[in-house]
């Protein structure tokens, strides 16, 4: 592994789901790869706050690259899950029609899905759709059923990809904000805001919301990423409104609409809204939009109750044009642009990894398979998923498995320690990695315990503990 200002074959900017998939795919070859991100941890941008859907392949016409990558990517998840052990389930997708006009739209989606080769897609009568999803509004007229659609925990997917990439030699640099780039000979020199330097033969711009700014840093194409905000509510796992399937409304021209999503981990997510905003750091939720979510979700599943809400949050979609923009830069050499990856970007991301690998190969990158490439990451035990007998066995070797830190999501001290040792040293990083603080008390009981574990494991002092890096310090003083 290379250090400091050494030269890499490929530098990937942006450790979201695209960058992570690209890095992991390239880690199968004899290459020196570095994955950099401006945030304190990976998956802290667009990839942490989205619907977590593996889409069904019926929303977009296959003339678009995004539709083709969506279909290909969706089919890659089963194998990835076997190799990487992240939460993923093909629970199926229903699209519910509540008016006659919507039934006609459903028919269009059905035909598009058939044309795209979606397996098992089905038009449903009222009776059939209520059989598939009994929690639906009894006024439903019918709809669409796509059994291959699924749900995934997006940040856990990224963490697993990054762990696998790291295991196969990829270097990860966080808090690395690409501020300047220079070309000399056949090599890019990327300088971070804090002065660190990375040299690489090829660069991949997978910077999500900031892909336009990174492109400018390289003197490449001019374009503008327009953030579109999506707000969500998260409901407690004990809600009566939890459906068995992902429930979609009939889509509008700008978005797939507000969904009711049974997350893999047992909670329920409702949203997102779709609102153009001017500021890429604007993750604020708003009263008006949140009200819309509740009423829209209730239209589809009447049991949705505001009393079940445990938190709300917002994510930003990095919108550019109608389609994804994934190609070699025409303005500068050896730069791959991976921009405008909005929905269905998460679904498409494994296929984007393949696609970018092929682009780099065409551009001259030599791909020699690593003989010792290991696609598997070790399975980590989660106390939540184990029987008392299994926990007792684990605790015999490491008692920390029986020391419960987060009671709501059933996370043990051993799991927190594993997260810290895997490099997640902020409260949010630990939250996304372990689920501790993600349940109904939202960290009310466990935050201080986690702060103490981070301090013990890393040697950081109280004033270095942050929510998500930067100035997001948790504490202001010590007595």
């Amino acid at each position, binding site marked *: 592994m290379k250090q400091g200002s050494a030269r890499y074959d490929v530098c990937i900017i942006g450790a979201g789901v695209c960058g992570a998939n690209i890095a992991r795919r390239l880690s199968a070859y004899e290459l020196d790869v570095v994955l950099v991100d401006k945030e304190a941890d990976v998956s802290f941008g667009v990839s942490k706050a989205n619907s977590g859907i593996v889409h069904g392949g019926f929303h977009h016409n296959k003339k678009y690259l995004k539709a083709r990558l969506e279909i290909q990517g969706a089919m890659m998840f089963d194998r990835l899950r076997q190799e990487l052990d992240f939460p993923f389930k093909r629970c199926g997708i229903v699209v519910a029609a509540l008016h006659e006009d919507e039934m006609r739209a459903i028919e269009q989606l059905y035909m598009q899905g058939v044309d795209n080769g979606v397996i098992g897609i089905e038009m449903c009568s009222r009776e059939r759709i209520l059989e598939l999803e009994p929690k639906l509004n009894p006024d439903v007229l019918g709809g669409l059923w796509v059994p291959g659609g699924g749900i995934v925990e997006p940040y856990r997917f990224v963490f697993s990809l990054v762990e696998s990439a790291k295991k196969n030699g990829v270097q990860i640099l966080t808090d690395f904000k690409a501020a300047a780039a220079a070309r000399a000979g056949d090599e890019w020199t990327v300088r971070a805001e804090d002065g660190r330097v990375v040299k690489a033969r090829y660069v991949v711009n997978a910077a999500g919301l900031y892909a336009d700014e990174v492109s400018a840093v390289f003197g490449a194409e001019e374009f503008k990423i327009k953030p579109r905000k999506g707000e969500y509510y*998260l409901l407690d796992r*004990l809600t009566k409104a939890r459906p068995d399937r992902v429930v979609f409304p009939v889509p509008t021209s700008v978005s797939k609409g507000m969904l009711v999503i049974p997350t893999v981990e047992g909670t329920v997510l409702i949203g997102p809204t779709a609102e153009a905003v001017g500021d890429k*750091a604007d*993750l*604020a*939720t*708003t*009263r008006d939009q*949140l009200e819309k979510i509740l009423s829209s979700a209730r239209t589809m599943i009447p049991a949705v109750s*505001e009393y079940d*809400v*445990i*938190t*709300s*949050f917002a994510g930003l979609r990095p919108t550019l044009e109608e389609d994804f923009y994934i190609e070699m830069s025409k303005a500068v050499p050896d730069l791959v642009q991976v921009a405008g990856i909005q929905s269905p970007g998460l679904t498409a991301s494994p296929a984007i990894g393949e696609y970018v690998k092929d682009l780099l190969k065409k551009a001259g990158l030599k791909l020699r398979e690593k003989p010792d490439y290991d696609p598997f990451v070790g399975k980590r035990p989660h*106390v939540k998923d184990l029987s*008392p*007998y299994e*926990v*007792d066995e684990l*605790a*015999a070797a490491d*008692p*920390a498995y*029986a*020391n*419960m830190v987060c*009671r*709501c999501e*059933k996370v*043990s*001290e051993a799991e927190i320690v594993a997260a810290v040792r895997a490099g997640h040293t902020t*409260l949010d990083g630990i939250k996304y990695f372990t689920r501790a603080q993600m349940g*109904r*008390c*939202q*960290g*009310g*009981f466990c*935050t*201080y315990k986690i*702060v*103490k574990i981070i301090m013990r494991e890393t040697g950081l002092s*109280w004033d270095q503990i*942050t*929510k*998500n890096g*930067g*100035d*997001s*310090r*948790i*504490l*202001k*003083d*010590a*007595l």
Partner: protein
Amino acid sequence: MKELNFDAAVIGGGAAGMAAARELDAAGFSVVIIEREERLGGILGQCIHNGFGLIEFNEELTGPEFAERMQERIEGTGIRTFTGATVMEMDARAEIKTLYCYSASLGVLRLNARAVVLAMGCRERNRGNIRIPGDRPAGVYTAGLAQRLVNIEGLVPGKNAVIIGSGDIGLIMARRMSWVGCKVHAVVEILPYPSGLTRNIVQCLNDFGIPLYLSHLTTRIIGRERVEGVEITPIENGALMHEKAFVIPCDTVLLSVGLVPENELSKGAGVELNPMTGGPMVDSMLMTNVPGVFACGNVLHVHDLVDYVAEEARRAGANVARWLKGAKPAREARLKSGPNVRYLAPSRVDLDGDNKLYLRTLIVKNGASLEVKVNNRVVKTRKLAHIQPSEMITVELGPKDLESAAGLPDPTVEVAIV
């Protein structure tokens, strides 16, 4: 896996758990307390202010002192205690109930008991529960978390705070934060009256010159990385006055917006809850719908004072002992919340015994009257000088009060505030 058998298992070693266990031990039953923290006392350990024990011990104590007194009462008894142990699963379907407790020192422990007392207490409502929109920076904490950080860990979460909600923990923390060098700029309450006890408004806000904004809603939290301010909007006649909204700059928001009984374990075991309290529905013996599973303290309903918790838990413990000996009430009547009553606990009364009921009202009123009716006929009235939702009301009902219900087929006892 280690396995132990007891007559009764008490989940939670706070004031409620200790008081209930002591009664069971005194009646000659084997009893175990399972406590998830490293020491007994529950939340009392971080409540270092005084005001505890005036009823229970006839003197004013701090939280840790109250806990210590409760602990002294069970010292030298046969009560087994496991601390640092969390009950993760409960199977209460059979006559013998099984609890699986996880603990770092013992691994997983299987405890079998004929009776279980739920005494897990409550948790704080948080930002998500009350749906405050805005940014999601560091610096937003529940008041209880801030209390833990300051009083036990010696860490101060902020230098300039706004407290949302005028619950007692928030008021206590307004004073506590002031003492550790944090400027508390305001306490913001959505209702037209404070949620906490009057004595706390006086001692924690007025004495420190901290303004209390009644009928104001927090409409936005501002700040990208760390809190930079909160937007507050006045409410007039039930409507938000957006044009009168203002921002208070601060680096910390503490939430004191209510407590919820922690009943996820109970729900998992089939215990039916009362949507008004968030606690189990219990009969006159404080037994839930699951035979042999009882509840007391803040897991049953949120109390104002730990003294009331201890009192209720003592009765629960005595009832469990009676139940273990085979006793149960011969005749019970259903209790109904009448006009202006938010809830009543328990949900049933024993027609032949002495009953103590706790209730909360929905209204603020001076010179109110409490009425007890049996099938719509008033059997008892009591004058109440002042009532408000934040102050719990107790009612005692004996066999004489309820004798008219005796001959009726399905009597209902209604409590009303007029």
